[in-house]
């Protein structure tokens, strides 16, 4: 679920870069204000590698294939660190795998990083009352939001030369194929948090 090079207008790509840069600036600013900014660095580094790697796992959901996004997980486990982690991961994916493009890096960053931050906020608000439900809502909600952002940007950037009806139909199939993934991402966040709480509570994010 990455926007590739060359399909969207240049103006949108530039706006995406501006938006991502603003988001990155904000999160780096917040990270610098933390009492110990380096504390979450090991976790952020490892999750960046995981985020980078899972995009090469293609799960066939006929007639298309989907790959895990882990937006909700990144947000819940990393908080503000999710933004630089996702941007670094996206950059490596674009350069090494050809997933997404360099011109669309900013847009892809917005598609994935903003749901991650929202998931983090939602999870922090709900977790004290119902940890499992909060984790599922954060994970599934973030995946669904990323999907919605992707579809919105594709529709906004649809050039006149493209058969709009066919593209909308293809997008419908695409969204439908991702619905199991949306559910799985929510369950994954709940499972990971539960496993961490049992095995390595030190790695748990401070709620």
């Amino acid at each position, binding site marked *: 679920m*990455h*926007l*590739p*090079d*060359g*399909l969207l207008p240049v103006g949108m790509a530039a706006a995406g870069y501006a938006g991502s840069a603003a988001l990155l600036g904000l999160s780096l600013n917040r990270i610098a204000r933390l009492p*110990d900014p*380096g*504390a979450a*660095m*090991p*976790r952020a*580094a*490892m999750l*960046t*590698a995981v985020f*980078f*790697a899972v995009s*090469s796992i*293609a799960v066939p959901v006929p*007639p*298309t*294939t989907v790959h895990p996004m882990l937006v909700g997980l990144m947000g819940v486990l990393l908080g503000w660190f999710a933004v630089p982690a996702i941007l670094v991961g996206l950059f*490596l994916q674009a350069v*090494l*795998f*050809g*997933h997404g493009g360099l011109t669309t890096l900013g847009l892809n960053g917005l598609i994935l990083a903003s749901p991650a931050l929202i998931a983090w906020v939602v999870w922090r608000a709900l977790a004290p009352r119902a940890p499992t439900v909060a984790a599922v809502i954060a994970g599934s909600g973030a995946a669904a939001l990323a999907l919605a952002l*992707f*579809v919105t*940007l*594709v529709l906004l950037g649809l050039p006149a*030369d*493209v*058969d709009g009806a*066919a*593209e909308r139909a*293809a*997008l419908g*199939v*695409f969204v439908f194929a991702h619905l199991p993934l949306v559910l799985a991402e929510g369950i994954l966040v709940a499972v990971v948090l539960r496993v961490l709480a049992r095995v390595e509570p030190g790695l748990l994010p401070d709620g």
Partner: protein
Amino acid sequence: MTARPDSVGSGGVALVLAGLTAFAPLPALGHAALVEAEMVAAIRLHAQFDTGEPMAAAQVILYAPDNPAQAWARGTTDPAGRYLFAPDPAVPGRWTVQVRQAGHGAVAYIDVGADDGAAPVVAVAGGGGPTGPLQRAVMVALVAWGALGTALYFRRRRRVHAST
């Protein structure tokens, strides 16, 4: 003397026919359809995802070298992700091909040389190629190694900080 009206009559019919054919262009006479065939140099695109899966029923948009703003042709790939088109040999240069489906896709450039009797030269740029599983595994391992190094570096620094 009987031959003259005959010849006049046939001449008149011929004149009327000539008049008809002059007013109505030939293809409109009746509903005659003509099919001609010629061999042309065509280009077949193969569109696939990097998993090797074909991009079936994806939209193909072609741009000629002389007009990159307006589509020269549009179409869809077949179930095997193929699309066949014959570029205009009068317009040599870099043809732009966009293949897209549900926001995914790629842009490729096909250099078509001038048709000087020989087959036109075709060179493809962009669009990428599928990465093999080994290549992907090595790239993932390298990034994981880098991340592990970063993680250990920050852990160690924290431990040093804590002990001092």
